[in-house]
């Protein structure tokens, strides 16, 4: 009887020792995994200020935010009207133009230039680039068409082009991020 208890106590110590080794192993894995996530300098990614004074109605520019393109577009009244004319229930990702712009600045459409399908940069912001059949943006990788509010209308992309956080610091400068 006494021997049996002794054996159990021994087994317990062996199991505890192996478990401790296991815990140590997990402890080593944590920094090894975490070192691959974004480093402090990347996380502190700066905000971008864009001067929009030179963008004429109908034009767009590409700015850089977090190493990705941002489209800043000055919509013409006609483009605004086109966007507002689309019935919401026909949209894959229903949003109005007003929801995607700032109040009183509905002509300034600011979106990420990253197709929500697989991350290509859509055409339509650069001079002379095709804007696709809905007059917004067209992603040539897999044929996603965005309208003048940068909403997905046709093609494989699941959602509208993302609107980043931004604010107008003055009439001519917008701060993204």
């Amino acid at each position, binding site marked *: 009887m006494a021997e049996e208890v002794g054996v159990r106590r*021994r087994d317990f*110590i062996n199991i505890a*020792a192996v478990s*401790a080794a296991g*815990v*140590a192993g997990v402890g080593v894995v944590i920094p090894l995994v975490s070192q691959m996530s974004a480093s402090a300098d990347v996380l502190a*990614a*700066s905000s971008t200020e864009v*001067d929009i004074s030179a963008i004429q109605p109908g034009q767009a520019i590409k700015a850089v935010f977090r190493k990705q393109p941002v489209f800043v577009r000055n919509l013409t009244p006609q483009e605004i009207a086109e966007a507002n004319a689309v019935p919401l229930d026909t949209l894959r990702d229903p949003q109005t133009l007003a929801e995607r712009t700032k109040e009183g600045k509905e002509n300034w459409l600011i979106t990420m230039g990253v197709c929500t399908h697989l991350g290509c940069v859509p055409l339509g912001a650069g001079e002379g680039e095709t804007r696709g059949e809905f007059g917004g943006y067209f992603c040539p990788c897999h044929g996603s068409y965005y309208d003048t509010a940068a909403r997905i209308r046709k093609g494989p992309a699941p959602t509208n082009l993302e609107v980043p956080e931004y604010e107008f610091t003055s009439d001519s400068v917008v701060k993204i991020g």
Partner: protein
Amino acid sequence: MVRILSILVGLFFTVALAWSFVLGAITAATEPAPAMVEHEFHVAPKNVHFSFDGPFGKFDNQQLQRGFQVYKEVCSACHALKHVAFRDLAALGYTEAEVKAIAAGFQVPGTDPNTGEETLRPGMATDYFPSPFANDVAARAANNNAIPPDLSLITKARHHGSAYVYSLLTGYQEQPAELLKEFPDAKTPAGLHYNPYFPNLNLAMAPPLAAGQIEYGDGTKASVDQMSKDVAAFLTWAAEPKLEKRKQTGWPVLGFLLFATILGYMSYRNIWADKKH
């Protein structure tokens, strides 16, 4: 055969070494090595205590902020701090707004968005401390032919770095009379400054600190000793911002390893209990 060859090779090396030794010994005996002024008058850094010393050491944020003020108002005129970003200053206890304000107080190199010309713009939190000189040539030209070293790693790049910085800043003095008596040629050249804590004794940097030069925000009296100690602490942080985290991580790790090792030892004794060895 192998042994004979080996003994021959062995004799080759040992005789060559004995030859070097004998000639070296004769030279050492007949021509004593010339005394060197750096050997005799260079002194090891002062014995100074910092809050971050020792295995439980922690940075004193008040002191780091004072030290940063010294760097900003004095050192930064000539010395870069290129591995440190303004955002890092949050670790000193500054708020986000304060960090932004500090950053904006520095002019960093930028590009004019319209013309593409190089220009200066106010710093942002993500910028790194700007270098006071455009390049090494400019640094040399402005500083009597001596480039002021970048300070981001200075306390790691010198033996006993924190004490070294402190000692150097407080160590300026008149060249001792015995030195000139013993080494008449070693008079500190014009434009250099005698400092026994500097490896070759003569430093291009003029004494940078004077009592009361700075007005500390927390009311601490800005003596040379106080400022030197504060800036040495700040530069220690700048060289290793993770120092505190390193020491704090160390204790639980060591504690756990001790526990695990004792368990391992007990398990080893158990398993071997019935085996004589």
